[in-house]
């Protein structure tokens, strides 16, 4: 290495000290983790300072999802710290989850000493090998003098371009070794240059196409949220300027407010009728920060057959991956939206009369009320429970997380999100057990906010142990369980596809969730009647400690509307048509052959 003059911040310290120093220098206030042999030197350093607060979890998966919730609700990187071997392997699920949902997550793992690597040492695993396909990038640091630069680069890679998870694997001897710490530098590595601004020519072409559209639609995704609050602001402005309808993926909810007049609701497999029909019949589709996921498109060969498509994405590999597009624009959603708003103001004007027939058509689709359900005065309908939760928390500083399944879809359909970063859910990977630890992470980032995990009885048991973490760290998260005693979405698919043979989708021996809450030292509430629901929810909100709310809902309710397998957007199954017979025959012989 060349000799350089001493710079500010360059100083000698141990590898473990460097880790803590790098966390501070990268603005980290909280980390989530679990100690073990191979990270003890780092834990020793954490013990001797107060700037970085460590949140002890009960399982490394919990640390990862908590860090994801923290990241998603703040827009900053989430950080987790785990030991070697099982600590690292338990981190794999949240790493893949963060990869698929583009969440900036920095995972620091301990490793056995460099001299023991490859010897099948105690708690050794090939961490960089195991995590290579489930990270954006990862590093094994063999030399303490590389450690600071790698840690800074890890934060840079996790947070820029399309955000994602990174792993820094640090052998124990490197944590003990002394070396030179260098502060974060602005010079990035030459091979990593995420795009920012979009091609101006293409943006101009897109504006031209949009100006001539008669049946346009905005289809937005998590990329708008990831780009930062300014992108959501610009999206609202562009929607207002153009007068186009807007729909969003599961990940993008909140970027455009649910109360906005141009809002069509979520699209996709369990999206609204109006959103999916408008996607199918549109003539110009403007996709911003979404990736044409298979839950969105339905049958690809029948996906929006007559539209010209504009696709804005920061990741070139998302372009033309599933659906060929006419105008690809590679760039940050916020930057491109800024250009679009400016160009639209300068050159285009909405012909309101030309869009009128399109809006009239949309109103007809809206009139189908695809999210309707049969109300009941005897049992709590799960949709009703989400609606009441929404109404009773309106106006509060509220953050929602979910697990995965029917309850997740009902939450997405019936809870209105007005702002970005308020909705934390596992979209791409579909990780049951995400919501509870994610809620913990959100609450740590926003101690005064009302943080609710809309959960299912099956999912929530996968990471229930983190209630203990919530109690320890006085995080008053509310676990609102829509308890139907089934793995509802599994059962729904078994009804649709497997002759109603409910193979292992009924949980026969659920715990008593109220007693479980008490066992954890938090507050338990059970509600079984629709008439009692409002008071019970109010009680949940008022309680200043973690709550497990056992909301007993109609056991056999299913999630509609739905695009059945092998069908297109305009072949939705609507709730009023979803008789037992229709459900059983939703996928006809032709559809079965297709899928």
């Amino acid at each position, binding site marked *: 290495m060349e000799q350089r003059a001493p710079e500010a911040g360059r100083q000698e310290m141990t590898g473990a000290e460097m880790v803590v120093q790098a966390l501070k220098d990268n603005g980290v206030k909280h980390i989530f983790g679990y100690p073990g042999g191979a990270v003890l030197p780092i834990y020793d350093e954490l013990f001797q300072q107060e700037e970085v607060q460590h949140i002890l979890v009960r399982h490394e998966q919990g640390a990862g999802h908590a860090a994801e919730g923290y990241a998603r609700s703040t827009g900053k990187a989430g950080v987790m710290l785990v030991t070697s071997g099982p600590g690292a392997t338990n981190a794999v699920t949240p790493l893949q989850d963060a990869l698929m949902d583009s969440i900036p997550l920095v995972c620091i793992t301990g490793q056995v000493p460099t001299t023991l690597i490859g010897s099948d040492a105690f708690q050794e695993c090939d961490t960089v090998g195991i995590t290579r396909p489930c990270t954006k990038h990862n590093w094994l640091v063999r030399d303490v003098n590389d450690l600071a630069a790698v840690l800074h680069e890890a934060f840079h890679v996790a947070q820029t371009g399309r955000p994602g998870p990174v792993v820094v694997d640090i052998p124990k001897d490197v944590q003990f070794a002394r070396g030179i710490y260098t502060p974060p530098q602005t010079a990035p590595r030459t*091979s990593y240059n995420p795009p920012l601004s979009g091609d101006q020519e293409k943006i101009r072409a897109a504006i031209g196409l949009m100006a001539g559209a008669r049946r346009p639609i905005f289809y937005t995704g998590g990329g708008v949220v990831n780009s930062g609050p300014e992108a959501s602001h610009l999206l609202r402005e562009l929607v207002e300027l153009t007068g186009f309808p807007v729909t969003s993926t599961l990940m993008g909810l909140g970027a455009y407010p649910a109360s906005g007049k141009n809002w069509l609701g979520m699209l996709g497999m369990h999206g609204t009728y109006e959103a999916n029909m408008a996607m199918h019949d549109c003539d110009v589709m403007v996709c911003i920060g979404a990736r044409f996921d298979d839950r969105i498109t339905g049958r690809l060969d029948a996906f929006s057959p007559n539209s010209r498509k504009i696709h804005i994405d920061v990741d070139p590999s998302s372009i033309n991956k599933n659906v060929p597009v006419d105008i690809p624009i590679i760039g940050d959603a916020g930057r491109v939206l800024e250009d679009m708003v400016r160009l639209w103001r300068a050159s285009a004007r909405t012909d309101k009369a030309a869009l009128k027939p399109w809006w009239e058509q949309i109103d007809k689709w809206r009139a189908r009320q695809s999210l309707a359900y049969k109300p009941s005065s005897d049992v709590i309908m799960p949709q009703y429970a989400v609606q009441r939760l929404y109404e009773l928390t309106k106006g509060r500083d509220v953050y929602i997380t979910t697990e995965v399944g029917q309850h997740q879809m009902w939450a997405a359909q019936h809870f209105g999100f007005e702002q970005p970063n308020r909705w934390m859910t596992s979209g791409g990977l579909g990780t049951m057990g995400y919501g509870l630890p994610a809620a913990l992470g959100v609450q740590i980032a926003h101690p005064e906010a009302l943080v609710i995990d809309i959960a299912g009885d099956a999912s929530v048991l996968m990471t229930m142990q983190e209630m203990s973490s919530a109690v320890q760290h006085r995080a008053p998260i509310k676990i609102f369980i829509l308890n139907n005693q089934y793995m509802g979405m599994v059962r729904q698919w078994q009804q649709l*596809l497997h002759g109603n043979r409910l193979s292992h989708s009924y949980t026969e021996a659920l715990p008593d969730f109220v007693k479980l809450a008490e066992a954890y030292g938090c507050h338990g509430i059970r509600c079984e009647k629709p008439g009692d629901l409002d008071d019970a929810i109010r009680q949940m909100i008022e309680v200043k400690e973690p709550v497990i709310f056992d909301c007993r809902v109609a056991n056999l309710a299913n999630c509609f509307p739905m695009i059945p397998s092998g069908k297109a957007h305009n072949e939705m199954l609507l709730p009023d048509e979803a008789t037992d017979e229709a459900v059983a025959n939703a*996928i006809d012989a032709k559809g079965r052959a297709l*899928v």
Partner: protein
Amino acid sequence: MNAQLQPAGSAYFITKETEKAEARTLAVLVDNEPGVLARVIGLFSGRGYNIDSLTVSETEHEKHLSRITIVTRGTPHVLEQIKHQLERIVPVHRVVDLSVTAQERGQERPLERELAMVKVRGTGEDRVEALRLADAFRAQVIDANTEHFIFEITGRVSKIEQFIAIMKPLGLVEVCRTGVAAMNRGPEGM
């Protein structure tokens, strides 16, 4: 292909592939650091892409740069994905589709060469024949005793495969091939 293996009902929508697969030669410039080859290979296996040939070696020592040459096969849509997915790998500097570049320059394909060592054991007439054929293929003898030759042959893949096929009845013992190294014709760099 996969469509037939799917059960009658599935949570996934699968459409049949209708485009035709074609072969392409890619040059990938990467930082020469531990794990970079594993990242590239893992990408191909993880996403179900084909590798017909892969070679790698450091090409610019001072800059720690390695050049990977990959011969792959896929539909145009998959090939576009391969290029973009490779570009996403953090230590990857550049990905150039040499086949496309060659076509753009009005050439059929880029320059592609492979080196092989071919060990042949035999006596008498076979031995003479092997040597005579090696000469015709411009293969060098790099090791020999009274019972064997090791030939070194360089050329296009088809030439090497032809040579190996011819040596088979003459006492072929073993073959080692480097895989394809490739470059575009003309004065421009990648």
